[in-house]
């Protein structure tokens, strides 16, 4: 007897079984093929990527003196599971910490919200960046503290107290750094300022990795695939800076108690010989565990010592700017070297008056530069911007003028290999159209011809102007790194750039600057050991005038171009010229004469009283 109703049930059962197996296959498909999460999860589960930190490149000055190197430091690590019978008091004493710190630190480590990677089986960071001295007592007693380990890291050490702004510093990466570049992982170090930042990629090297297999208890079971995926760390490249540390040190000495900047450039190469920004600080303040506290202090200082004024300070260049005007007018044919303009204690025209000091009148270009005649350059700009036949309108004339300025490296970042460079300000026609609602003329903007008004430059741009004149019309983008170990310098720092002005006109301006030293505003620079060319500036501002000097030496075959900017220092001749001269002497002669040494000491002592206002 066969019950066909029951016969059917075998199909129901078989159907149910087939569907369940198909359901499982679908589930396998979604787990294994559709979803990537489980794969990633598995890797973080089983692989421990032990990072091998490379040594960071060291930094030398141009003469091969070591400036920045690495020193071993220790991180104290703890494996919670292995901690037992700890004499807390003794432990705290040997580290110089108090019990509260110990308790709170242990609490933070165990808190998975604050320490997401916590496992009682793996090493956790208890304290970081202890110097050898700080950790020496602890190291001796380490065997008493089961579960605690010392892990070697390295921190930056400075063999110099100078050039903090150029050298910069390193610190732990921020969240932003990690988002920008996924090379960085929490706890890594990164250059924060100076060349440490701009040459971060060269200095840091490449991290290595050991892919270790870790079981569910966090115990290491050996290298994955016998180390096939391991990578050795690549050490960072060493840098040689263009800085001459003796010159830098003298500059910093001379600028003590003042606010301002000194930038010296080797004209032929664009190498920055010194870059002083005052006030400054000792770079070794920014090392290790004290960095945080010191950084905060410095950032709160109202003199803003963290600011690198050489490239971030945007100042009116004052009369040093007149050289650039002379070059422009000559090239554009507005004047010839023989053209003379009158100056009756200034530029007086249609009710406008730009004052000037007493000197012969009328006068031609060379004496105008030597005496820094305001009238002469006002007339020059007035005539250029007013040359309707040549330019059609004032806007075109202004645009032409602006192009000259830009070709000399103004108005845009020069491209120095340091972070945070500012571009300064060179106004253009659109700027004035907007500011004066299209109703303006040469007279409206006349003060830009003497480096006042809307024009601002960074001290680096002023120094570069000096280097350009020294080179008679070309410059190489100024830079602070002379060579990178095993790597070519960026072509930007080896390729000359030409301005729009011909060499012959530069010769005229050089004569003017030489004459300023011989019998003009820079008489203090008239020394026996070199033919210095210079130009002072006395930049007006709301407070006391800024003292500026721009110059180079020797006149033929120049070796150094320099800009000195002393805020509220008064006349250019007061601070700028003597400081600039001392710097040139140091660099060209390798030392200061006894008289100069005395003068340097007196400048070191001199203080300018600055108000308490924020700057």
């Amino acid at each position, binding site marked *: 007897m066969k*019950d066909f109703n*029951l016969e059917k*049930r*075998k199909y129901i*059962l*078989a159907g149910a*079984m*087939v569907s*369940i*197996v198909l*359901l*499982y*296959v679908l*589930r*396998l*498909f979604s*787990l*294994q*093929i559709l*979803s990537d*999460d*489980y*794969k990633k*999860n*598995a*890797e973080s*589960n*089983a*692989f421990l990527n032990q990072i091998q930190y490379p040594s960071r490149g060291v930094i030398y000055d141009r003469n091969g003196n070591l400036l920045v190197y690495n020193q071993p430091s220790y991180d104290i690590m703890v494996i919670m599971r292995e901690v037992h019978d700890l004499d807390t008091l003794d432990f705290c004493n040997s580290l110089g910490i108090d019990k509260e710190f110990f308790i709170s630190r242990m609490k933070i480590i165990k808190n998975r919200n604050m320490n997401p990677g916590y496992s009682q089986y793996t090493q956790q960071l208890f304290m970081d960046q202890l110097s050898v001295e700080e950790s020496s007592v602890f190291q001796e007693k380490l065997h008493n503290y089961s579960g605690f380990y010392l892990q070697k890291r390295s921190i930056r050490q400075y063999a110099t107290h100078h050039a903090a702004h150029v050298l910069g510093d390193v610190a732990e990466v921020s969240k932003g750094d990690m988002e920008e570049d996924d090379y960085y992982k929490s706890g890594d170090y990164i250059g924060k300022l100076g060349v440490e930042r701009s040459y971060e990629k060269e200095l840091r090297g490449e991290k290595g990795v050991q892919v270790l*297999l*870790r*079981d*569910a*208890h966090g115990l290491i*079971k*050996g290298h*994955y695939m016998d180390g096939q995926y391991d990578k050795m760390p690549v050490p960072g490249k060493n840098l040689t800076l263009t800085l001459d540390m003796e010159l830098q040190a003298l500059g910093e000495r001379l600028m003590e108690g003042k606010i301002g900047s000194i930038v010296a450039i080797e004209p032929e190469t664009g190498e920055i010989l010194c870059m002083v920004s005052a006030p400054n600080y000792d770079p070794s303040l920014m090392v290790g565990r004290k960095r945080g506290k010191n950084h905060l202090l410095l950032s709160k200082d109202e003199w803003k010592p963290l600011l690198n004024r050489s490239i971030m300070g945007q100042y009116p260049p004052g009369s040093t700017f007149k050289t650039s005007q002379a070059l422009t007018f000559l090239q554009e044919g507005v004047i010839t070297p023989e053209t003379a303009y009158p100056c009756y204690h200034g530029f007086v025209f249609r009710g406008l008056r730009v004052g000037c000091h007493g000197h012969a009148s009328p006068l031609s270009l060379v004496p105008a530069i030597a005496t820094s005649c305001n009238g002469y350059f006002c007339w020059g700009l007035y005539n250029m911007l007013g040359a309707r036949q040549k330019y059609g309108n004032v806007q075109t004339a202004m645009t032409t003028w602006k192009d000259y300025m830009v070709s000399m490296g103004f108005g845009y970042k020069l491209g120095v290999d340091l972070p945070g460079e500012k571009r300064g300000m060179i106004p253009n026609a659109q700027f004035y159209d907007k500011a004066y609602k299209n109703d303006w003329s040469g007279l409206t903007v006349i003060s830009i011809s003497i480096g006042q008004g809307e024009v601002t430059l960074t001290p680096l741009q002023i120094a570069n102007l000096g280097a350009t004149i020294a080179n008679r019309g070309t410059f190489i983008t100024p830079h602070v790194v002379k060579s990178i170990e095993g790597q070519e310098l960026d072509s930007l720092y080896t390729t000359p750039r030409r301005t729009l002005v011909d060499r012959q006109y530069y010769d005229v301006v050089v004569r003017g600057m030489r004459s300023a030293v011989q019998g003009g505003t820079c008489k203090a620079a008239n020394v026996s050991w070199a033919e210095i060319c210079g130009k002072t500036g006395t930049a007006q501002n709301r407070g006391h005038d800024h003292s500026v000097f721009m110059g180079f030496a020797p006149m033929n075959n120049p070796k150094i171009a320099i800009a000195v900017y002393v805020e509220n220092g008064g006349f250019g001749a007061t601070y700028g010229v003597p400081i600039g001269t001392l710097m040139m002497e140091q660099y060209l002669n390798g030392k200061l004469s006894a008289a100069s040494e005395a003068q340097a000491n007196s400048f070191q002592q001199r203080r300018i009283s600055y108000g308490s206002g924020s700057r």
Partner: protein
Amino acid sequence: MVVDRDSSLLKSIDWFTILLYILLLAGGWISVCGASYDFGAIDLLSFDSRSGKQLLWIACSCGLGFVLLMLEERLYETLTNVVYVAMMVLLIVTIVIAPDTKGSHSWLILGPVSLQPAEFAKFATALCVARYMNSYGFNIQRWKNFATAVGLVVLPMFLIIAQRETGSALVYTSFFLMFYREGMPGSILFSGISAVLYFVIGLRYQNDFFLHDSTPIGRFCVLLMILVFSVGMIKNYCNNSKLFWQLLGFGLGATVLAVMFAQWSIPFDITFIQLGIVVIVIGSLCYWGLRERMQHYFFIALFAFVSLGFHYSTDYVMSNVMEPHQRTRINVLLGIEEDLAGAGYNVNQSKIAIGSGGIWGKGFLNGTQTKLKYVPEQDTDFIFCTVGEEEGFVGASTVLFLFLTLILRLLVLAERQPTKFGRVYGYSVLSIFFFHVFINVGMVLGLTPVIGIPLPFFSYGGSSLWGFTILLFIFLRIDAERGKLK
């Protein structure tokens, strides 16, 4: 004669099943190697290692299979009762004398060998039930006969529960698939499945609310299921489509109105309305039962009533009947608790291990998750992880299809049995295999509760391997005799 018998035996044995058996054994051994292999220890054949031992168990079971094929088929039928009784006694003895291993008392330790009698009770039970159901005059429709058959199954089940091996005990529920094939009313199976659905859905969503946080989703769904199932039965069993449409329209309409009212007017717990609807359905079923004098209405009313009772007592069952670790397992499986370091750890890690396998897997002995002991019980209950991780989607689905082929092949064999004895036994065997695969793989994939039962031929261990081998080869021996009795 002997030669004759042997040659006819060789011809009548189902070699296809034996091929599947060998393939599964081979796959199983490879997986045990992968799961127990530790870095450094390369000697897979050493008897000190799990893989070496497993090879020994495999050799033993092949010998065992051969012996079972050589024995007279009649022997199985005659010895059935003796074997069943002996096994039950052994199970009782085990409860008393077995030492405590991880909370269970199911292992008999005889010198160097440990045996788990529960694994061998399966074939004894299957044989005994098959023989009983083969007896003259047995009719599954008869209440007493059916109860006796169920009793034969439930006895070892309780004994194994007493050994604290709930998982192994649950395997015996697979006999109901066989009962179903043999004519047990489908409504019993349907009720069982309904109960599982009420339980799972009711618990999973008991703390999720909708309609402005007024109504628990779990209860809403369960009551809706009770309504639909009950009303659906009216159409199926009572042939009263007018009443079916009336009650369905009324029930769903009232539910929709209540949902709309709670959603846009005054939020309130509409499960009370649903409860009212089900009560009205029960009432009208009783009315029609009295009017038409038809038992079916009362049975459906009873179904709805018991369903309500079951659902409303689930909380009680969970907190008073279940053991804490089972409660946690169920909660984790249902996604109520998310304790990745605790009970959810196993399932999560096994999903990670399988998921990391990709299409082709990481290759033999190259799995990292299973080997680094992230997956618990990696070579026993969670062995399928190793398959998934090392052999990937392709390997894991191949294994699943091998099992499916084996089960379907057994189904074909069972259906061709000339005796009820052979068919019942065959269905018991395939149901047991199916249940093991269903629960074990489902657990590893995170689809069924974590119930610790082995994957046939794959999980490490002699007892389970021999248990499955005995189950299978006795059936093959019975099958080989099919021609003689025609």
